[in-house]
């Protein structure tokens, strides 16, 4: 069972790094069909070509192979006789050598690179308990370009959270490899808002009227692919909410680049 987890971790990472989910590719194709700016259109087509090259040659589609982030959905009735974290860590080490991945994990102060993408707090494993005895691991490698632009705002309840989101995207999108996906955490606390935002990226894309309105506002900004102008600034977004204190309005925006890399492996 432990070796199955290690192998599934490697497989999920390999799949995530060298291809994109079909629904993401379809969104880029649709955006390319509708794009009116010639530079933007050629960028979108080149992005699709890049994914084809990555799939054919089994290469990481982006050199920033990211930090290893995993969502683990685990049944409440499942009992494991080994340390799940250590098994996933082993998988990350093997994947780093075999795929191969760029070693990205460094100590925040010494900047010393561990060489294998593990270290204090890495991989980041986000555990969701579900009914039953199942076990599913989703690899969600996250690059720094988009993550660096992410932000938690502790707003005044009198502020408009959507204005804040649009303004933040306007200021930061160009560096986050647009067209973007956005995970938005609305409410909660300082850290809960950030967790909701990351979780929103796991459950992309949202399709509620509120989410579609926000997407439309963002795309009307004209930032375009790579910040060079165009109709396509964001491909999709999702908002996840939690109650907040009557005196608070936390809003977290987790930026994700066009290459929304994720792949799941069902183990049980």
């Amino acid at each position, binding site marked *: 069972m432990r070796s199955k987890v290690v192998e599934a971790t490697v497989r999920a990472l390999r799949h995530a790094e060298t291809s994109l989910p079909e629904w993401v590719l379809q969104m880029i194709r649709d955006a390319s069909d509708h794009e009116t700016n*010639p*530079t933007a259109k*050629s*960028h979108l087509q*080149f*992005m699709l*070509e*890049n*994914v084809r*090259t*990555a799939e054919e*040659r089994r*290469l*990481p*589609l*982006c*050199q*920033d*192979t990211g930090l290893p982030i995993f969502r683990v959905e685990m049944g409440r009735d499942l009992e494991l006789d080994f340390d799940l974290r250590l098994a996933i860590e082993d998988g990350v080490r093997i994947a780093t050598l075999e795929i*191969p*991945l*760029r*070693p*990205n994990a460094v100590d925040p102060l010494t*900047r010393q*690179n561990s060489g294998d993408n593990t270290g204090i707090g890495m991989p980041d494993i986000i555990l969701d308990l579900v009914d039953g005895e199942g076990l599913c691991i989703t690899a969600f490698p996250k690059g*720094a*370009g988009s993550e*660096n632009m992410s932000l938690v705002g502790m707003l005044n309840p009198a502020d408009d959270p959507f204005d804040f989101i*649009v*303004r933040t995207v*306007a200021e930061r999108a*160009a*560096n986050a*490899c647009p067209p973007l996906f956005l995970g938005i955490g609305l409410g909660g606390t300082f850290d809960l808002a950030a967790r909701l935002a990351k979780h929103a990226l796991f459950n992309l894309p949202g399709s509620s009227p509120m989410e579609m309105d926000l997407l439309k506002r963002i795309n*009307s*900004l*004209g*930032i*375009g*692919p*790579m*910040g*060079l*102008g165009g109709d396509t600034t964001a491909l999709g977004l999702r908002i996840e909410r939690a109650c907040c204190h009557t005196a608070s309005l936390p809003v977290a925006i987790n930026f994700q*680049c*066009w*290459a929304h890399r994720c792949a799941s492996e069902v183990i049980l």
Partner: protein
Amino acid sequence: MRIGGDPLTEYRLKTPLSREDVQRLVAGDVVFLSGRVYTARDKAHALMRSKGCPISLEGAALYHCGPLINKNVVRSAGPTTSGRLARYTEEILNLGVRAIIGKGGLPGEPFLGRAVYLAYPGGCGAAAAQQLKVKDVHLKELGMAESLWEFEADAFGPLIVAIDSHGKDLYQDVRVSVLNRLRS
């Protein structure tokens, strides 16, 4: 000098680049670049500032990139965010660099009259790997992502001229238009 040329005018250039080479280019043009391309990012820039550059960058194309290399083969090599390196722009261009390649842009003023900023589509590392070969590596002690890699480029592109040497900056144009739309 052309003003606001056809957005998809293509150029095939070879390094080392001359002042004339870059002065022909207008924001919006597309370049495919051959010859030597050097990578440098955060640590290499900091080291060049404190200890000087280990190689000549006269006429060079400097690529903001932390590549994924395996057995001396480029596996993936898209651009990193240039904004983190904005503080070094003036001194890098003073070394004779004629083109900085990256994503997201830099302050435009240091490029006036002498250099261009070229944007490679972000995230497209696998495509870039088909156009770049390892020739040498400097500052290897900085590790894979941070070393100064010397690549031989074969029609590396599409590179969009995002900041030209005449004061036109596509990112700045977009920023101004975005601010106007936010206010309306």
